[in-house]
């Protein structure tokens, strides 16, 4: 039996096919995985720092906590753990946007979502005109044991937090602060979030 001898052109075509498949494999290995490619664009900040997101600028202005909090608008929340109160300012640079979604990432790598639609863990951030600052709060019910070292991610979309910027704030919580918050006897008053200068 005589084996067919490929012509030079056939060998070249075969080499091109192998090269294309190899290039595809290299691209697949080096492009981010779907999970990574679909994540939000995260911008890390500390308390007091301002970060520029696609939709506007955000500054986390303060963190507090208690077993019981009393929002100016809404019902008192009492927790067997702690309710974290994170205050932040947001100034939109595009219309029809505000901060509506967050994720508390604690030291045990648990993720607690908090959104505009939440009940016990909720973000309240009135939508201001473009270029005007709004004062906002995020109330997050959390386990006290893993709050030291926790981060809070904040972004514009409660429907789908991916495909946009999120600020990831290091809340700089210490064990001593967690103990103080647990020992707090009186409910913590939370002022009503509002656009700056408005009631």
């Amino acid at each position: 039996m005589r084996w067919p001898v490929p012509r030079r052109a056939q060998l070249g075509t075969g080499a091109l096919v192998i090269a294309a498949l190899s290039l595809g494999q290299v691209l697949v290995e080096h492009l981010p995985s779907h999970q990574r490619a679909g994540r939000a664009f995260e911008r890390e900040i500390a308390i007091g720092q301002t970060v520029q997101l696609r939709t506007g600028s955000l500054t986390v202005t303060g963190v507090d906590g208690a077993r019981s909090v009393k929002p100016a608008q809404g019902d008192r929340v009492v927790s067997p753990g702690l309710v974290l109160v994170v205050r932040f300012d947001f100034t939109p640079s595009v219309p029809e946007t505000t901060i509506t979604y967050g994720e508390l990432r604690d030291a045990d790598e648990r993720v607690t979502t908090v959104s505009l639609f939440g009940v016990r863990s909720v973000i309240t951030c009135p939508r201001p005109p473009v270029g005007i600052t709004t004062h906002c709060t995020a109330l997050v019910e959390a386990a006290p044991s893993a709050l030291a070292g926790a981060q809070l991610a904040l972004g514009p979309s409660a429907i789908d937090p991916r495909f946009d910027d999120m600020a990831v704030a290091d809340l700089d919580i210490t064990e001593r602060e967690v103990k103080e918050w647990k020992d707090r006897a009186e409910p913590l008053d939370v002022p009503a979030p509002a656009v700056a200068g408005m009631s």
Partner: protein
Amino acid sequence: MSTWARRNRKALLLLPVAAITAVLASSSRIEDYWWTKGLHDGTKADASGVVHFSDAYDDGYLTYPIEASIALKAVEPVTTIQSHLGKPEPVTAPDGAMVWRVGLRFEADPDTALSGCKIAIVDADGTRYDAEPRQFESRGSTPIHTCVPDETPGPQATVGSTAAPKVAEGEAPRPPAYDTVVYVVTPVGVKPRAVRVWWFPPKYAELPVEDAASRG
């Protein structure tokens, strides 16, 4: 030219066409996530400052035209708004903000549904400031509608119905020409370059703010 290139020249010429076609074939998300989500298809004003705007509502079940001639009458900062009794009532704007009164003139067939438009001021940088309710406080009289008179809004579609828009029972027809007023909040120092009017993105009417029209 080498023998290989000569033999394959047709395929080589078609390669860029195939590449462009492949990119276009995978571009449906541009339509879904960008084109229909923003204002990209503007209609400019003619020499007399009037925009002859034409769009259509179409949800697959109900279709009706949106056609009007729109002119900008005035863009001016306000610190008071008149009440129903004619008394000027102070305006409270957010810190660092001011309130603008935008006056528009519409000419349209009274049988055309024009409710539900949105209006914005655009500055020299292209930043858009939308007119939204509750962005400022005043006891003055502010209109409910932005592109039709409150008393005679004309035909309106019923939510969830495929029936053509119609004038509410007992309501007078909308006049063929009328003026409307809308209030827009911007940061202090913004210089309006244009006023935009739209019903459904991506189409919008762009009305340039002439010096005479803006007293800001």
